[in-house]
Each structure stands twice: as C-alpha cells, then as structure tokens.
C-alpha cells in the first residue's frame, strides 16, 4: 500500500514527509473502491442530483474514506511495523509522526462529514460519520485485535459507501441500496481470508487473530467456500427483486459461478504451492468480481 518502495533512513527524515506519504495515509486503493461503489449507489438511486453536487458528494465520501484510512494507520502502526506488507507505510517507516497522522485523519473526518452535509444532506453525512467511526474506532481499535470475526463485522464499514451514495442522491435509504450493502458485506470475508491464508505467518507474528491463525487453514477454507456461495447468491438479489435486468443477471451468474469455482479450488488444494496459487487466484479474482459486478450495475443504471 505504501506509495514509496524505497527504504529511507527513518531518523534522518523524521517529520519531513513527501506528498506521496500523505497520499499513502489516505489508502488510495481502498478509497478508489469506496468511490466506485458510492458512485454506483448515487447513479442507481436516480435521485436527480445535479452532476456538480454528485461530484462534490463523491469527493466528500473519498475524503472521509481517506480520513478513516489515516486513523487506521495511526492506531495500527505497531502491527504494520511487524508485517513485511505494511512495514514501509509512512508511520512505521518513520516518515510521518503518529500525531501528524492522527491530526490529519481527524481534520479530514470532520471536514468530509461537514462538506457532505452541506452538499447532499445530513442523512448521507450522518451515514459517512458512522462509517468512519465504525472503521476507525469499532473495527480498528476493538474488533481487529480481539476476534477472528474482525473482518466479517468490520466489513460493514466497506459495504456502507453505496448506501451513502444512495442517501446523498435521494435523502433516504432504499431497499436496493441495502442489497448493494449485502453484496459487499458477504464479499469481504472470502476476499480477506484468501489473503490471510497467504499471510498467515505474518498475522500470527503481529498478534492479529485472523481466522487461519485462530481456527486453522482448513476451517478458513470451509468458511471461504460458504461465504463465496452466499456472495454469489447475493449478487443475483438485485435481479430477484426486480431492480436489475437480465443482462446484469447473466453477468452476476457467470461471475458467481467463477467465484465459487475458485473457492472450491482453494478448499480442495490444501498443501504446498498449489494451495498458495489457488488462494492467490481467488484473492485476485475477488477484486475483479466486485468491480465487474458494480460496473454492470452502473452501466444499467445510466440507461
């Protein structure tokens, strides 16, 4: 995630961060998924929001997501320092002081909520505030180090953006936006557990109770398969409820079958390199799955 792959001497440059370090604090890759799913909620709501206000609302949501990311990095700096994947993030690498990241996150959180309230109404703003709190406080400070269900419950934070987008466009909560929430909610566990299978030792060393560490790899594979079946069904829900057409239905069915097939591969191949590459394939495909599914919804919604 860190924007910079080059290791710099930490003590020499402490407190003198590059612009890229502040961008890295915002977790731009997570932010891009948040903005995309919020856009889908915004467009599908057909609320007649002016494009300029829609853009301003999306920007506010993006800033809010970045604020949550910064607060997460502030709290998790000790864990990040112990994992190879995250050791080069700005705080563990010594380029940004913890207090700076905290202040950065808090200021952006308050600003993003205030902006969204002024641009698109206070229901959406309240939703954004709750999401930031849920991710930065409830997930990061409580769930993550406490229970193997951390990313299941915490996944709700990542699933809220389409509902925020919907609320920004309409000022209300629609059943369709709840379905979009459920798709991302059930998608999160197999996505992160596939990664956790690959990074089990690192999570164990950092003391994070991810499912493979606590319940073992076989139990993780079983749960991945169960959630994959659930997410494949959840992907079809917009069709069953009459919100989406057959075009979307065909895409969702195909993607769902592929998702479950890859989950079965992860379940079957339990040893050695074959097991690793199966987990890696599922992880990579899960990102593509969510992107294509929401892209299909977006295209249908724009007609």
């Amino acid at each position, binding site marked *: 995630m860190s924007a910079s792959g080059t290791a710099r001497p930490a003590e020499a440059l402490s407190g003198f961060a*590059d612009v890229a370090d502040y961008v890295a604090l915002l977790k731009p890759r997570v932010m891009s998924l948040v903005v995309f799913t919020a856009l889908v909620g915004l467009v599908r709501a057909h609320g007649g929001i*002016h494009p300029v*206000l829609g853009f301003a609302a999306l920007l506010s949501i993006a800033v809010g997501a970045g604020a949550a990311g910064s607060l997460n990095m502030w709290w998790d700096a000790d864990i990040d320092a112990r994992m190879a994947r995250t050791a080069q993030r700005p705080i563990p690498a010594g380029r940004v002081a913890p207090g700076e990241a905290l202040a950065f996150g808090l200021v952006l959180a308050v600003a993003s909520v205030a902006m969204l309230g002024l641009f698109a109404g206070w229901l959406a703003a309240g939703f954004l505030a709750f999401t930031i709190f849920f991710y930065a406080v409830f997930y990061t400070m409580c769930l993550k180090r406490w229970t193997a269900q951390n990313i299941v419950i915490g996944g709700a934070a990542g699933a809220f953006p389409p509902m925020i987008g919907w609320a920004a466009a309409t000022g209300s909560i629609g059943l369709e936006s709840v379905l979009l929430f459920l798709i991302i909610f059930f998608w999160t566990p197999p996505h992160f557990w596939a990664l956790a299978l690959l990074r089990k030792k690192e999570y164990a060393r950092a003391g994070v109770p991810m499912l493979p560490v606590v319940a073992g790899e076989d139990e993780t594979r079983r749960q991945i398969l169960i959630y994959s079946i659930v997410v494949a069904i959840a992907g079809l829900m917009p069709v069953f409820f009459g919100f989406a057409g057959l075009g979307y239905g065909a895409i969702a069915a195909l993607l769902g079958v592929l998702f479950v097939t890859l989950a079965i591969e992860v379940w079957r191949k339990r040893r050695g390199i074959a097991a690793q590459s199966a987990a890696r394939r599922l992880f990579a495909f899960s990102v593509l799955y969510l992107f294509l599914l929401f892209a299909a919804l977006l295209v249908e919604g724009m007609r």
Partner: protein
Amino acid sequence: MAAKQKQKGIVLSAEQRRRRRARSIALALVLAGFAILFYAVTIVKLGPQILNRPI
C-alpha cells in the same frame, strides 16, 4: 563563529527543503481546488437566487 551558527537554528537539507516545497504546493492546489468546488456548489445550489437577497 559558533554564536553565528547557533542563531541559524535548524538548517534544512536540500532534500528536506524540496519536500517542504512539494507539500506547500500540494496544499495550495488542494485549497484552490476547494475554493473552486465551493464556488461551483454555491452557484448550483442557489443559482440566480444568490443575487436575490435583501440589501
């Protein structure tokens, strides 16, 4: 000579000065962007009504 150096305080390296300049420019661009955004949102939300107020 020593007193003269003391008065200088913290002396930034060339790299640190470059980064501070980059941060300043980035902040200026962000602020300008937000000024434009708030202007646009104001026009969209209020439209011609912005002129329609008691003097």
